[in-house]
C-alpha cells in the first residue's frame, strides 16, 4: 500500500496549507501544477475552468499561475462555484 503525498502529513516534512490542511512539499510548486494535482477534472484542454486560487489572502490571477510558486508555510485557498444562495 502506498501513501498519497497529498494526504500524508508528516510534521517533519515542509508543508504549505492548502484549504486549511497541511500539504507536504518537497520543493516549490507552481500554482498551475497544484491545481492540476488537486482537481485534475477542472482542467479541460489544458485550461482550468471555474476555479480560483488565493495565496496568503491575495488572489493569484490565472495568468500568473505558472510563475507563482507555492512554498512551505504559504496558505493557499482553491475554490470553485457550488450550489448556494
Amino acid at each position, binding site marked *: 500500500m502506498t501513501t*498519497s503525498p*497529498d*494526504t500524508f502529513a508528516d510534521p517533519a516534512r515542509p508543508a504549505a496549507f*492548502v*484549504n*486549511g*490542511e497541511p500539504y507536504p512539499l518537497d520543493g516549490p510548486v507552481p500554482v498551475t501544477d497544484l491545481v492540476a494535482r*488537486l*482537481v*485534475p*477534472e*477542472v482542467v479541460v484542454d489544458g485550461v482550468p*475552468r*471555474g*476555479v*480560483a*486560487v*488565493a495565496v496568503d*489572502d491575495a*488572489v493569484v*490571477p*490565472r495568468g500568473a499561475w505558472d510563475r507563482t510558486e507555492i512554498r512551505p508555510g504559504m496558505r493557499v*485557498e*482553491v*475554490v*470553485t*462555484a*457550488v*450550489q*448556494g*444562495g
Partner: protein
Amino acid sequence: MATTSTTSTDAPLTIAGTSLGSRLVMGTGGAASLLALEDALVASGTELTTVAMRRVARPALGAAGAAATGDTSIWGLLERLGIRPLPNTAGCFTVREAVLTAQLAREACGTDWIKLEVIADDVTLLPDPAGTVEAARILVDDGFTVLPYTNDDPVTARHLADAGCAAVMPLGSPIGSGLGIANPRNIEAIAAASPVPVILDAGIGTASDAALAMELGCDGVLLATAVTRAADPVRMARAMRLAVEAGYDAARAGRMPRREQALASSPADGRVAVGDATAAPGARDNLDLAL
C-alpha cells in the same frame, strides 16, 4: 383601431446596462439534486442565478467533499442552460472575507457581478449594514458590479446606492424563513426612492409573496428555498415566474382605489320587482352610488 398589448418583457430588468429577460433571480441552495434543480431553473424562466464559492474537495476525500467540479457541477449546469451566474459571498462575516471571496469569484466565474453578503451573525443571518456598505465601496472601486443583500431599511439602501451599487436587494424576512414580506411599507419606500433596481431577496415563501414584492414596486425577486424546498419544486418555480409577471403588471396597471364600504358593480335601474316591492329609496343608497 389599434390595440396595445403590454407584457412584462416590454421593459426588461436592466442591471448595469445588461438586460435580463426575466425578473426572477434564482438561488441554487437547498436543491435535492442537480437534476431536480435543472428542471426548476428551466420552469422558473430565470436568466440570473446565484452560486456560492467554496473550497474544492481534495481527491483523497472523494466525491463526498465540499465541491463537485466538471460536468456534474452547478457551474457546468448554468453554462449549459445559458444562465448568467451571480456568485455570492454567502457565509462571510467580515469585510475582508467578503472582498476576498468576491475577488476569487471573479476569477473562477469570469464575471464581475457579485451578490455581496456581509452577515452579522450566524443566528439571525441578518446583513451587517456597516460592513455591507464598507465592502460595497471597496468592491465598486475594484470594478465590481455589486448587488448587495441588505436589510429592509431605506437609509441603508440609500447608502448602498450612493456607494455605486448596481442594485439593492433588501430582505423580505430572514433567510430561509419563508415568512414573506415582514415590512411592506419599508420595501415600498425603498423601491420608491431607489435610483437603482430593487430586488427583493430572502423571505419569500410562496407565490403571493413574490407578487406582493412586485406590487410594492420592486424590480425583481430573488428566491431559492421557496422553490428548492417545496414539495413540487418545478411547479413552485413556474408559480413564481407567473407571480413575478403578475405582480409586475399589477403594479403598472393602476389599481382601483380602496373603499371602506361595498359598492355595487351592476346597474341599480331596471331591477326585477317581486310582490309589493316599494322599499324606501333610502335603503338602497349604496346601489345608487353605483351610477
